[in-house]
């Protein structure tokens, strides 16, 4: 019995020690050094244009799971949704030569890419869906990024809390120009449902789901995301998740 008490005490010490380390300032910074190493090695192992696996129709998940915001609690968004997003426009600005705004009809008129891909959530689950949309590379070619531009920031319609913090995400140009990076307006041969990000969401097939912003209102090209949100490049990044979500 004494030995058992000793073991319990040791286990308790280990658990509370790990918790204390997790809450410290220095230790998580040490752990995050692994993120840079992972990104460097993964970039070295897989070419920048290497393609994520694509699947066939019979692999499609019966229902594509909705996660995070399923219906933005925002009056302006709800008004747009009631009008079938006819009045919605995608703003494209920041470090570009020709800032523009595009309607859903204009996006649909552009050349489209269709891909059946697997969506991997940071929580661990995967779902397979068929997406149709405009390659981000084509849109960038139209607005002509300035040489100083390094990241594409996605500004979204969904408020994440009562003070109105909105979802946002950012990717670098390697991912922005990847052939499978599309601004999707259709899922499984139907209009993108609100639960999955209507009218427009981004697909970044070699990263985790939280990178793939839904309810996109604006694309902003920047040289640094330090001044946006809490400065870590995304809503979940500001809450401790990795900016590089290739793992």
């Amino acid at each position, binding site marked *: 019995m004494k030995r058992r008490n000793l073991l319990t005490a040791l*286990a*308790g010490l280990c*658990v*509370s020690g*790990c*918790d204390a380390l*997790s809450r410290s300032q220095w230790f*998580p910074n*040490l*752990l*995050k*050094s*692994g*993120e840079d*190493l*992972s990104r460097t090695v*993964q970039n070295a*192992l*897989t070419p920048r244009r*290497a*393609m*994520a*696996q694509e*699947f066939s129709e019979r*692999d499609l*998940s*019966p*229902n*594509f*799971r909705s996660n995070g915001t399923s219906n933005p609690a925002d009056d302006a968004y709800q008004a747009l949704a009631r009008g079938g997003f006819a009045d919605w426009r995608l703003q494209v600005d920041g470090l570009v030569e020709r800032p523009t705004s595009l309607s859903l009809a204009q996006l649909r008129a552009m050349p489209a890419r269709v891909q059946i891909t*697997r969506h*991997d*959530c*940071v*929580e*661990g*689950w*995967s*779902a*397979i869906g068929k997406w149709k949309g405009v390659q981000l590379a084509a849109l960038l070619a139209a607005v002509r990024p300035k040489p100083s531009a390094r990241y594409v920031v996605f500004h979204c319609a969904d408020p994440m809390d009562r003070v109105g913090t909105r979802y946002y995400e950012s990717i670098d140009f390697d991912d922005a120009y990847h052939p499978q990076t599309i601004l999707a307006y259709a899922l499984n041969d139907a209009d993108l449902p609100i639960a999955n990000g209507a009218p427009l969401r981004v697909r970044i*097939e*070699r*990263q*985790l789901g939280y990178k793939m912003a839904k309810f996109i209102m604006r694309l902003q090209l920047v040289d640094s995301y330090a001044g946006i949100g809490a400065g870590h490049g995304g809503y*979940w990044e500001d*809450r*401790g*998740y*990795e900016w590089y*979500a*290739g*793992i």
Partner: protein
Amino acid sequence: MAQSSARGYSYHRHALLVRVSHWINAVVLALLLMSGLQIFNAHPSLSWGKSSYTGRSPVFETTAVTGADGQPVGITRVFDHSFNTTGVLGVSQMDGRPVARGFPSWLTVPSYQWLAMGRHWHFFLAWILVINGIIYLAFSALSRHLVHDLTPTRADWRSIGRSIVDHILLRHPTGSAAARYNILQKLAYLTVIFLLVPLMILTGWAMSPRLDSLAPGWVSFLGGRQSARTLHFAVAWTLVLFFLIHVFEVLISGLWNNLRSMITGRYVIPADHHTPDSR
């Protein structure tokens, strides 16, 4: 090297590098398991196939339901069988009250639900495991530790039947035989080093969406990403099984002698009058 005395002789059993890498592994594997269970808890369900939503049921799942008395009940489902696992899986105590979580707080790092931090721990420690493993393998190949101490000889293979019986009867070699690993021990270590740990790394890679693009469709060879996640979980618990047997054998074959040999390197061979060594 060897020192003799009336009670036997001692010799230098484990090289410094082997001892250091052993203890790094012990700490790192324990923390990898605990941070891994933290990550599992974010979606406490395992499926077989390319995705989690294939139309088939999960192969393993923990859930929490509300019982007739209003108290939460932990349910674990394995294939089509359900078990009440309240207290351990599905529902367990945290700060004195029952909460819904896959594995209990005393088995996860951090103890409370914190996926982002669990991932930081897990991926950092995975690098330590890989770097430690590469150093160990390079040393073992160059110093011939792998060939001399771990590769089974013809005599080893011939002794396998007797070794199985000896292990079941908890009989341990003495004299010169105790100075070498027995065949089951060699096979256990080789399985961990060349099968289980590489499988952990491979199934871990298969879950990375970026490494999915390493070669077209390679993840399908493991049955798909969700199969890889299930295998990652199963192999982790196989390593736990190895750990339990390993610690059991250490305990019954001379705890302090074994521990000392893995700390200072010195191992005592008890005198055995049936072998030429002690004459």
